[in-house]
């Protein structure tokens, strides 16, 4: 249940130069543990003379370091809702303060009950944990910068790759054909198009409610239906969907566009696109299937869209989100899993 609460607000954090790593994300917490332990093992290795000595030192360091590490993580975990309200600079200072405090407390506790060889000096222990903490924060800062272009470019790519020019011009053509005979329908189509392009040109860095993305997809499909008519069948299985769950925008729409382009258009009699959305164990599953023909060889555009979606999922959810695709028996399936995160109040 806890996972639902404290995702940092994408808007505030991304517009700052940096943001604190989200400790409540499993992937990020694991990375922190790995980095800290690697540093400790490195220290033990440097100090040791041989293998036996090394193991002994690792054990000795771990006895004091692991409790400190775990307590610090736990403390950061519980302070997370407070920390994310601060700006990046204040956040960094607070993180250091929390860790120093925890470690000093653990050290004092240990000094009263210590039964092994002598305890290292407090100042050295604190300096060491400070250094490891700084290293970890620096790593996350770099990592975030490395992934940021994916978000910054998302808008541009949306125009260049996601909405295929093919779709744009064919839709305009379809609307033109309606103007004389069915002006009402032409109006509706143009309205859908305006909405669609408004979203595509918007700043798409903030998470949006799932219901909003679904509405966009329905408008997009209405336009495709205009062109393809009875060739395009859509099956929505979204009864079990949490409409207020927050997802990165334009996750589903580009996938639908691929499904229409690669799956439906090459078939003279058309086919069915199936969209299934449900929650299971606090995760949202988006499953999209469409008929697939081995004959067509327009793979390139498909990969580009998938990679962009993957990058954005990683940026927002790290290891907690995944995108898998497979094709078997003439059916192509994309399966996205993301953490169920409710709208921030």
């Amino acid at each position, binding site marked *: 249940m806890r996972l639902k609460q404290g995702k940092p607000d994408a808007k505030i954090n991304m517009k700052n130069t940096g943001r604190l790593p989200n400790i409540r994300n499993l992937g990020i917490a694991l990375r922190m543990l790995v980095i800290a332990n690697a540093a400790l093992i490195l220290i033990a290795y440097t100090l040791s003379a041989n293998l036996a000595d090394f193991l002994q030192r690792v054990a000795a360091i771990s006895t004091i370091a692991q409790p400190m590490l775990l307590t610090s993580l736990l403390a950061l975990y519980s302070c997370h809702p407070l920390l994310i309200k601060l700006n990046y600079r204040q956040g960094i200072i607070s993180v250091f303060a929390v860790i120093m405090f925890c470690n000093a407390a653990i050290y004092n506790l240990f000094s009263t009950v210590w039964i092994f060889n002598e305890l290292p000096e407090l100042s050295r222990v604190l300096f060491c944990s400070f250094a490891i903490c700084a290293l970890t924060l620096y790593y996350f800062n770099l990592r975030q910068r490395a992934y940021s272009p994916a978000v910054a470019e998302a808008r541009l790519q949306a125009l260049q790759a996601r909405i295929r020019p*093919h779709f744009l011009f*064919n839709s*305009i*053509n*379809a609307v033109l*054909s309606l103007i004389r005979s069915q002006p009402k329908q032409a109006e509706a189509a143009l309205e859908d198009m305006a909405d669609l392009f408004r979203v595509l040109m918007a700043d798409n860095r903030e998470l949006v409610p799932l219901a909003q993305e679904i509405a966009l997809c329905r408008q997009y499909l209405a336009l495709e239906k205009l*062109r393809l008519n009875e060739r395009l069948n859509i099956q929505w299985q979204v009864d079990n969907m949490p409409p207020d769950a927050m997802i990165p925008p334009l996750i589903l729409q580009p996938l639908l566009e691929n499904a229409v382009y690669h799956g439906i*258009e090459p078939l*003279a009699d058309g086919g069915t696109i199936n969209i299934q959305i449900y929650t299971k164990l606090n995760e949202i599953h988006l499953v999209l299937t469409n008929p697939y023909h081995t004959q067509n060889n327009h793979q390139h555009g498909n990969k580009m869209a998938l990679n962009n979606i993957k990058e954005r999922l990683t940026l927002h959810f790290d290891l907690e989100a995944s995108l898998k695709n497979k094709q078997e028996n003439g059916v192509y399936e994309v399966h996205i899993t993301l953490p169920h995160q409710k709208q921030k109040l």
Partner: protein
Amino acid sequence: MLNILIADDEAPARSRLRDLLTDIGNLYIVGEAKNGKEAILLADQLQPDIILLDIRMPEMDGIEAAQHLQKLTKAPAIIFTTAFDNYAIQAFDMNAVDYLLKPIRQERLQTALQKARALLPQQLTALQPLSPQRTHLNITERGRILLVPIADIIYLRAELKYVTVRTAEREYLIEESLTHLEQEFGNIFMRLHRNCLAASAYIIGFEKRSQDEHAEKQWVALLKHVPETITVSRRQQHLVRMA
């Protein structure tokens, strides 16, 4: 008066062309096709002067359709239409092929109709890379064009001047070289013998048999839907082992 055939898989696109052509006037729309295959059959039947041919269509795309259309006794002039296709447009520009970009303007359509002419052989050759593998073979029989889907072909056998095309129903004769067919459809057919290509999908298995009592036993391929077998030449016997 010009006779015109429209080929586009999208109904709104067809109706838009119909509107524009009606506005231009003094021409006659003989028919409308929903894919390349239909376009060829209708063209064969209705003998239009001009075809407005969409490129991206199911079953058979416009580029392949154009290649088959050229073989009609009275080949129509072709004007391609497309919403967006960078590669095709480049090829059209380089080879002075007529094309119109959707949404189509009436003036452009009018100009295109006035200068429309049948594609030259070298133009067709230049367009071929856009549709690297045909989906159908066309067979001229008693002045009519028959389209045989590649997926229905069980084997191709070269005999003298012709190649026999075998489907589950019957045999056809075409005037193409087996080598050329092997190059184009190498992913679908296996060369079992110097004179024979068999579709991998229709090969059930291999068996060692002798033609008559005195002859040496040879590997033959058993095929789905047809009683005859195909002898595997000595040189191709590694295929049997792979299967």
